[in-house]
């Protein structure tokens, strides 16, 4: 009884807050003041897209039944995509994954403590990052952002990869890791596209695809994020079958008919 009352109270409070935020335009006021201080709109946008990424994550997991591993990794990857561009993010992800597997193969056979093995892997990745920087700089494939953000992004991807490919897992999991990688690619590409990122036909091309509807709405009416949060909440209450389950249990479902 108490639990039910608490549930209802929380729901009502949330709805009330959403209504208040929507009507008072408090988010818009806050963003305007940031712009006035001098913070770039593009940086603010990186914060604004987080609820939408959360929504797509929930949608993929709960409605479609495609499990995107990790809570923060996909979000960080998408943000990195806006910093480095889609191709660079994916490329770096792939290459660093390859470096990690190679490093694991060499280090696994060394008879040293497990904790030290992980440290060595991270060190190898950072060395790789430093070595590739001059090459990348010469190719001039920076997209939206340059300078300090780039280095941070490289390091973040490297750390994600270390988490992504744990020293503890064996080589039998390569197929599993590859499947996860494909899921990430699809997820970050979809989000990048929906959130107004430019996907060039190739790194050196001037032609690109851009869907800027959602970007325009988010930047014009930031309060729309409250609606996104509400939809995310409703997805959290969904108890129906996931799409993958409908496929998996189709014989059983249609047998009932």
């Amino acid at each position: 009884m108490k639990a039910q009352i608490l549930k209802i109270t929380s729901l009502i409070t949330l709805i009330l807050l959403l209504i208040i935020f929507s009507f008072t335009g408090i988010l818009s006021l806050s963003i305007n003041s940031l712009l006035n201080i001098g913070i770039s709109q593009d940086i603010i946008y990186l914060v604004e897209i987080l609820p939408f990424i959360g929504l797509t994550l929930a949608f993929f997991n709960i409605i479609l039944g495609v499990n995107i591993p990790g809570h923060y990794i996909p979000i960080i990857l998408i943000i990195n995509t806006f910093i480095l561009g889609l191709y660079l993010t994916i490329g770096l992800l792939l290459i660093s994954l390859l470096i990690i597997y190679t490093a694991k193969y060499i280090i696994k056979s060394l008879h040293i403590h497990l904790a030290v093995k992980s440290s060595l892997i991270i060190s190898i990745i950072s060395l790789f990052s430093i070595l590739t920087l001059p090459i990348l700089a010469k190719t001039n494939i920076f997209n939206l952002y340059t300078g300090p953000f780039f280095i941070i992004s490289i390091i973040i991807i490297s750390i994600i990869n270390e988490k992504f490919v744990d020293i503890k897992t064996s080589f039998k999991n390569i197929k599993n890791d590859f499947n996860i990688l494909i899921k990430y690619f699809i997820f970050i590409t979809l989000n990048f596209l929906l959130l107004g990122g430019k996907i060039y036909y190739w790194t050196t091309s001037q032609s690109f695809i851009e869907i800027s509807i959602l970007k325009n709405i988010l930047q014009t009416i930031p309060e729309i994020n409250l609606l996104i949060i509400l939809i995310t909440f409703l997805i959290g209450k969904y108890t129906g079958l996931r799409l993958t389950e409908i496929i998996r249990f189709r014989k059983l479902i249609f047998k009932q008919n």
Partner: protein
Amino acid sequence: MLFDSKGVLGINARNLLYIGPYNKKKSIEMADDKVKTKAFLSARNIPVPKLLTVIKNQKELTKFNYNYLPNEFIIKPNKGFGGGGIIPITGRKKEIFIGTDNQEYSLEEIIEHFYNIINGNYSLSGQKDQVLIEKLIISDDILSQFSYKGLPDIRIIVHNLVPVMAMLRIPTKESSGKANLHQGAVGAGIDMAKGEITHAIHHNQIIKEIVGFGPIKGIKIPYWDEILQIATKAQLATNLGYMGADIAIDKHQGPVLLEINARAGLGIQLANMAPLKKRLEKVAEIQVTTTAKGVRLAKDLFGHTVEKNVRSITGKKVIGLYETVDILHQKQVFPTIAYINTTRKKNYISIDLAKRLGLIKSKRQKDIFQTHFQLKFKLAGKKFISIFQIEKNIKKKYQIILGRKDLSGQFLIDTSINNILTENSQGKSNLFIANYNPLETDRKICKIAGQLKFLSYFRPLNFKQEIEKFNQNHFYNPQFRYQFNNDITENLQKDLHKIRYDSSDLGMLFQRKIEELNNYLNLINARGSSDLTFLSKSFLGFPTKEEIEDINQNIIEKTKSKTTKQQEITSEQLKETFEKTLHEYGIYNWKIVIKEKMIAKCIVSKTKKISIKANSFFSEQRVKDLIIHELETHLISSENGRKQKYQLFNYGFANYLPTQEGLAVYNVLSQSQDKDEANYKGIIAKAIFLADKHSFTELYEILKQLKLTDKSALDICLRVKRGVGDTSKPGVFTKDYCYYSGLKKVTQFINNGGNLIDLYHGKYSIDDISLIKNISTFNTPPIIPKWLQN
């Protein structure tokens, strides 16, 4: 809801509607901790695998003594999931450990694996963990026959104390002997009422059979009721409202609870082709107060519906085209296979069966097919009296044809539950009985045979008092009284009737054994009545006049001047001698006990026990004879029988007793040249012959005239008058005729060029040797007496 799930439970509903509301955090934490779960449930009398040791952290790991590890054990992470980190070890060669797939693990690899477990490689959320080392479970024969190494287990979903759905998980080569569906194991749905397999899936696809084995539909899970009880009790104890219980069946221990699962997967629905949410909703509102009620509800609500529905609507039982039928004739039961043919009006019987029933002893061939016979029979629990005609063309696969005349209005025939006529590799037609599993049939028969302690029923309640009266006055005919347990015998007969077999060699042996057990039960029911003699003679045999003449000439005449031997060896000394002999044969696992209440001086039982009568004395010759008779014949046969695939080799196939006893006496004759035992058996045969016509006291006097001691004469009278009530009247129990008849048969067998070693595969009749050799596990018995070893 975006899509109507039709009662199929998905992960979203499972998490939000069942795990969240019903599984409290504390209960989930305990379920995730195998050590805590084991201790908790074991304290509440729920059987769990034996825990050998736990290695809690790296400090304990460094101090661990690996010599402590037995040859067989299983390594598990305490908080593992999905079967990860589990390594069963089935053997050990010094510091090399052998896994289920004959993989070899060095000690270093085992240590590294322990290290990885402790570091949390296999635990939920990657936290530090503990290593569990448990006793390895050897799977029950019925389940292991179609699984690839590993341990098959049964996953049962329990909600509100009702087991709602169950699945057998069968390891395959693809899953490397693991029972996880995601890794390639087969999932087989189980009918909740009958405990029989319904459907099977592999990688979410329905399959009709298991590669290398064949169809598994209809195979019954042993200990089914017990398994349901364990699952329900585990839920009651752990308070997990939505729970998956994983139960394995150990060959020796029976069902054991491997682990409980607070987040049971959903593939069980495909294995059963039934939606889980519908079942969960059905039981949610029912008030279930006890585990027994929960199990009953599960069977009533979720058992096989079609047959039940039809039966509940029509009131008629559903049968197939081929059914086992019991013919009740002359107080005996003859189980046989019947073909239900509704295109024919009348009933027909084969010539073979008619001969067996004694219906056509001396009729002319012409008359046979025109004569009608009235027979009683039992089909699907219903008794009928009907007219049968002999038919020439009845196939060997079945013995009778039942027409529509008797069956109309009584049954419904479902061709889908039918038995199939197949051909075996020799091109011989074989009647494959639906739901027939030879190992299960063997187990059931042995269970009944084990429960039926036949001779114990024949010890009178007032034995001591009546013997005392006789000893005081040799003109007194004891009046024996027996304990009557008609319920027990009736229930055993019902159980026998339910046992299935086919018409293969093995099926025929099963059929004969079932018939024999039925006859034993009829004999038990006939104690103290006038029917005992008739049944005993029909079933256990009776000496012929020629045999008695032979006994008179060759035994009684020649033993008139028998000298008694000095009996110096006590029961305790005999026990020591036996132990020494067994050790010489490398047999260490038999128990030798000294017992008070025994008629015979020494008995070898099927349960690895030798009983010696207390306060007895034996001569040296007698000890030698006992070793040959009891140890080097019966015990060795029993040990060899135990090593066979079918346990009936140990319990004894039909009519094994004359062969075993005959072999024992023959061995004594040939090895110790002591004719006393053989002669004694001849005298018993004569006593049986005489007891049919004389009272107890008359028989006693006659035996005294044969120069037998008072004690021997009394012993023989007691043996042959067992089961008789009023011993003042003629009456006999002919069981001990088997010694004489068996000796004759074995002697004939040897004289005809037979090999004694062929009689040591287990316990069976000499007449069944050719069938036995077809089903025996080994070409040569593993243990044979010393004198046959060359």
